[in-house]
């Protein structure tokens, strides 16, 4: 069942569930921040409207910096602003920023500990028709390896807005990934956003089921995880659905708490499985120091759902998440594979 404590969208399972672009959460938060804090500055590299920075640009033209198609320069200027008392947001597509300008970010923002918030838009295969060049599916991998950065992957509009607002409150580099298309609104304005915490969006009927599985997801695919959970419930299979909005630092305690209870884990992300959120979970669970700290040495197996060492392609978001095994059917199948110990080739 949906976790009643989190005030999630009660209409989440309706066919006409409200849909809003995650990137709008960024744009709306920027306007609020601009009004609240004169030190907030926004930069873009020729992608003002599509990164939803245009409302900020219209309201605060003197604090909006157009860099043209020059992502390295944008990162460097932001780094300079960030060490001079400003809170600088850089807006571009994640394949270009932090993709193309990664080393500039590493040196001038992260190593330099500058107060810059990197907004990676058009993340995931659901960027759709533009094709693989514009679908950022490695951004978590290239950012999570950097020391001194905080990473958030919001699941919907509201979480994106709250994450953006939160990032401005804390000094230092943040990476937040946003999605282009409308996605189902999972949370509500009232849902608490607790940075660094994994939230149980779906809780099992019984917490002692020997076949209990945890579906751990991040970003817009949390919706697919919830759909799967609801359908599995009807089939008598109990699961958790965990929303990992904070990729770094990871809520290690929660991961071990869940690992203790479940027979298996399915991770689901719109990202390469190599180096993504699933990797973070598995690295954490396999870490001897953490195992010792939490007294858990026998760990559940993990099924990794996401891009399996391949690029995406053009298509609609729905077609793409189906073809690349990230929709609710893939999740259900993954859960059953673990329970019944069968491999992918067998039908469930």
């Amino acid at each position, binding site marked *: 069942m949906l976790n009643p404590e989190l005030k999630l969208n009660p209409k989440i399972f309706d066919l006409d569930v409200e849909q809003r672009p995650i990137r709008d959460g960024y744009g709306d938060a920027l306007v609020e921040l601009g009004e609240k804090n004169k030190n907030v500055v926004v930069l873009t590299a020729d992608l003002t409207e599509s990164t939803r920075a245009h409302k900020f640009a219209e309201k605060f033209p003197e604090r909006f910096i157009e860099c043209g198609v020059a992502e390295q320069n944008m990162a460097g200027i932001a780094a300079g602003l960030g060490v001079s008392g400003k809170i600088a947001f850089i807006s571009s597509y994640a394949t270009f920023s932090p993709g193309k300008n990664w080393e500039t970010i590493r040196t001038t923002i992260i190593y*330099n500990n500058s107060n810059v918030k990197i907004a990676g838009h058009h993340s995931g295969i659901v960027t759709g028709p533009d094709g693989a060049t514009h679908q950022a599916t490695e951004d978590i991998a290239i950012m999570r390896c950097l020391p001194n950065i905080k990473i958030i992957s919001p699941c919907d509009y509201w979480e994106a807005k709250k994450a953006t607002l939160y990032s401005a409150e804390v000094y230092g580099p943040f990476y937040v990934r946003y999605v282009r298309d409308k996605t189902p609104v999972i949370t509500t304005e009232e849902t608490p956003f607790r940075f660094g915490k994994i939230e149980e969006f779906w809780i099992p009927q019984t917490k002692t089921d020997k076949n209990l599985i945890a579906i751990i997801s991040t970003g817009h695919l949390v919706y697919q995880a919830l759909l799967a959970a609801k359908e599995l419930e009807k089939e008598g299979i109990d699961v958790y659905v965990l929303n990992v909005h904070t990729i770094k630092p990871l809520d290690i305690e929660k991961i071990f708490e869940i690992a203790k209870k479940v027979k298996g884990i399915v991770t689901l992300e719109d990202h390469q499985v190599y180096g993504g959120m699933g990797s973070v979970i598995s690295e954490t669970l396999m870490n001897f120091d953490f195992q010792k700290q939490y007294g858990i040495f026998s760990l559940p197996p993990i099924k990794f759902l996401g891009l399996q060492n391949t690029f995406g392609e053009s298509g609609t978001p729905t077609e793409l998440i189906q073809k690349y095994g990230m929709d609710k059917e893939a999740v259900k199948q993954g859960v059953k594979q673990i329970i019944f110990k069968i491999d992918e080739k067998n039908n469930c």
Partner: protein
Amino acid sequence: MIEELHDEKLKFLEEKANQIRELIIDMLLEAGSGHSAGPLGMADIFSAFYFHILRHDSQNPDWPDRDRLILSNGHICPVRYAAMALAGYFPVKELKTLRKINTRLQGHPHRTTLLGVETSSGPLGEGISQAIGIAYAGILDKKDYHVYCITSDGEHQEGNTWEAYMWLGKNNLPNLTIIIDRNYIQIDGVTEDVMPLEPFKQKLESFGLHVLEIDGHNIRAFIDAIRTARSEWRRTSVIIAYTIPGKGVSFMERKFEWHGKAPNKEESKKALDELRTLEGKIISEHQ
């Protein structure tokens, strides 16, 4: 405002430049690795900055109203460290820790480790962009600090540099002055052989920048150029400072092989002998 440069002060600055050179040799020998040619070539300009041009306070390195000196080509940091030590930012003896474990004097500068270096740098082509950000913040905050950015000629092969110039051509920040160390060498050889930069001045001017050219070892000419740059209130100035890499040490001068090499004991002794006796190597109005 920058004070008038009297003859006494000029002599003082030249002496400081020579002390900086000696310290560079000392610290590189101790470190056993690092860059020799670039730091020696920029000693006069760093002396001018730390002892005449900059509004700064070594005891208060994050003073909000200080002028900012951004070093884009971080590999020449020994010259900056030497100048900072002589200016009182940290004890001169600490220079011997360069590149050693637990040091504040990293092989390439790290802002959060050593206050006063303003940015972390080393990877080339990134300084001007950061200087733009710092200068722009000054304009937003109505501060009157000036931002100086020192760059190498070789790093003008980086695309990022020209992205930044293009931005400046549009936005014209008068509170930013860029200095290019035009010493014609880079790791693989002479710049014009590796990847030609000429016609350098014309390229810069075509981006809408105010370009000045001076002898980078003539401290008076350099300070005059800085004054001219600061009086240009409509746009960013770029000063191309022609320098001799390895300046002051005859066997290093103009040799690209000394770009990324530190002297051994014997070479250090020879270098220090030359520097301590000057041997006419430093052009001075008093000689």
